[in-house]
């Protein structure tokens, strides 16, 4: 075991991440054995559909969790962004590009609200984000007059955004969304590990006061984490409608939990200071596969709620235990 762990390649990728990959594979094989129809390309595409938007949510919330905070508003904010921009697209007949920008802006706006309240107002992040969750639900509902909004299909005018998710080349569905998600993850990883934003975000999560006393404007950097998170929720909105077309007001809170679950499974510590973008990505894939698998076996979605809850509990407990042992 130690030998594998100290192998240079293993070290480079990270032992935990390899284990996670192994589990992903194991789950896939398991589902394939138990449900013969599981082994099909369209299944993978279907699971990926779920992974895209969840991936962006998870990437975003990773930054917030890295500061030691939490954001419970991402799911509803994603819906709010998709509702507002979708309304502009379908009812006000705006061109597509500005609508996509609006979607990201709406997400960013909520990021700013959360960030200002938490970083500058000193409010606990969980209660703040829960309050903004309610506000985003209400806002999306007000803006669309409580209706659901259906984004255009690939074949319709303005439907090309769907190619962001999958592109049909020569009769084969190419999961372009996966490429984009991976590129986004790489950018996030660079931001987190190689830039000042990331450095300060991680350090704030580790010891906010020490960073502040080093003369760093912690409020600004902490707020930035929430803004990045909100922005990515806005991006997630595009990928959600790209996969599922329709959004309706008043929903989205279940996705918070799944995004956070992906994060903590990937090795991001809930107490802050420790984050892994690669891990988050794999964590999200596991959640997506789990959801696909549960459906494939004909189980109610409820099992997923229960399972995700238990997974997060176990992951957080493990994190706390390992921290306790270190100190």
């Amino acid at each position: 075991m130690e030998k594998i762990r100290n192998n240079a390649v293993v070290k480079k990728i990270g032992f935990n991440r390899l284990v996670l990959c192994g589990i992903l594979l194991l789950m896939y094989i398991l589902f394939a054995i138990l449900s013969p129809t599981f082994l099909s390309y369209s299944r993978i595409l279907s699971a990926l559909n779920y992974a895209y938007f969840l991936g962006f949510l998870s990437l975003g919330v990773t930054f917030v969790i890295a500061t030691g905070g939490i954001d419970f508003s991402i799911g509803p904010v994603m819906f709010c962004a998709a509702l507002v921009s979708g309304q502009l697209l379908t009812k006000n007949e705006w061109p597509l590009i500005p609508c996509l920008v609006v979607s990201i802006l709406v997400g960013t706006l909520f990021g700013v609200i959360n960030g200002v309240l938490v970083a500058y107002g000193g409010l606990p992040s969980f209660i703040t984000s829960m309050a903004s969750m309610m506000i985003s639900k209400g806002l999306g509902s007000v803006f669309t007059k409580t209706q659901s909004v259906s984004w255009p299909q690939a074949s319709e005018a303005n439907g090309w955004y769907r190619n962001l998710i999958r592109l049909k080349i020569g009769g084969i569905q190419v999961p372009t969304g996966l490429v984009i998600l991976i590129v986004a993850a790489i950018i996030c990883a660079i931001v987190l590990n190689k830039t000042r934003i990331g450095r300060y975000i991680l350090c704030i999560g580790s010891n906010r006061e020490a960073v502040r006393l080093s003369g760093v404007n912690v409020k600004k950097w902490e707020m930035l984490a929430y803004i990045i998170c909100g922005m990515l929720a806005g991006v997630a909105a595009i990928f959600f409608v790209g996969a599922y077309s329709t959004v309706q007001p008043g929903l989205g809170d279940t996705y918070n939990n799944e995004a956070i679950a992906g994060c903590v499974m990937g090795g991001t510590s809930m107490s802050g200071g420790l984050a892994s973008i690669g891990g988050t990505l794999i964590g999200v894939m596991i959640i997506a596969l789990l959801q696909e698998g549960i459906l494939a076996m004909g189980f109610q979605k409820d099992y997923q709620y229960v399972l995700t809850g238990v997974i997060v509990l176990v992951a957080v407990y493990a994190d706390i235990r390992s921290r306790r042992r270190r100190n």
Partner: protein
Amino acid sequence: MKKKLLSVLLCAAMVATMAAGCGSKEEPASTPAPETKEETTEPAADAEEEKTDESQAAGGELHFEIVSKGFQHQYWQAVLKGAEQKAAELGVTMDFVGPNSESDIADQVQMLNNAVNKKPAAIGLAALDTKAALDGIQAAMDAGIPIVGFDSGVPEAPEGAVYANCATDNYAAGELAAEKTYEAIKDRIANASGTVRIGVLSQDATGESLISRGLGFIDKIGELIIADGKTVNVVGNQKFVDDSKCTKTDGADVEIEVLVPASVDSALSATDCQTLLNKADTIAIYGSNQHSAEAMVTGDENLGKFGTGEGDVIAVGFDSGAVIKAAVKDGTFLGAITQAPVAMGEAVIQTLYDIANGKTVSDIDTGCQWYTAENMEDPEIAQNLYD
């Protein structure tokens, strides 16, 4: 580090146990390995495979996938019952699934995709939102799996995908409710000195069947009122205000107020009902599904204004269930509309079966009925009333 590993393994173990539980549960239900040919994950091979429809190749036993709108309301249990009865009768197997609530569109899309991936002989679908389901419908078409719509059907589906609909015409159901309501309040509107108010409670403004039921009611009652020389205005929820077809006049004789709660919460809907009842000019309230109608019963408990007598507020519900049935029976409700869920369930399976056996099928309107204290014992109606 070790703990982390342990935790991850634990998760895996959980998944495994769950999966194992599933395996043992599924075994007796379905015949072993309906799929004899080799499956690959190669995309090219997969695309090719989709062209050949071999879903009913082996064994000859038919399997259907039914994607419903969820089980929150007893209504769906009745549909399920009808479907199960018919399936047993015809000797076919089916999976009957549905999302957690009628707002979980994304979940239903996943379920539809999943159903297509299982390659059944045919799929029964009650789409929460057709546009969201289009990808899945397209995939079913590509795979040559016929779809039969039910409940509200699959309106605006692409050409050739849906072979038939076994549906309630929700708009017509709304209209029926409007006619019956109008009969009861006609005189009051005619004799009213000031504005009178008709309330409409809708669980949400996103599901197509609820929108149709609401709009059918509003449009029809508006039409009837205008025909009698009065004016109408629609206020409240913007969706209904914008989409209703009746001519709206400010300061009209009759105001139709539509209320939609922020979430599916009986407390919120009950409050909406009370808000309406507290307005002195309210003469009738219509609740467009089980949730809303039940909330009307609850909401009225504080005020006791519903009834059929002089000065009472007329209440009209939709669907059945113990609470609503009791309300109709004791005269709190003027009456309610019921669909024919059991018949619908049976019809869906029958239609699917016919398609699988190569027969041509056509749309079936499973219909709706108006029931009151008087006629609710009639066998014809009683069979569609459930607890």
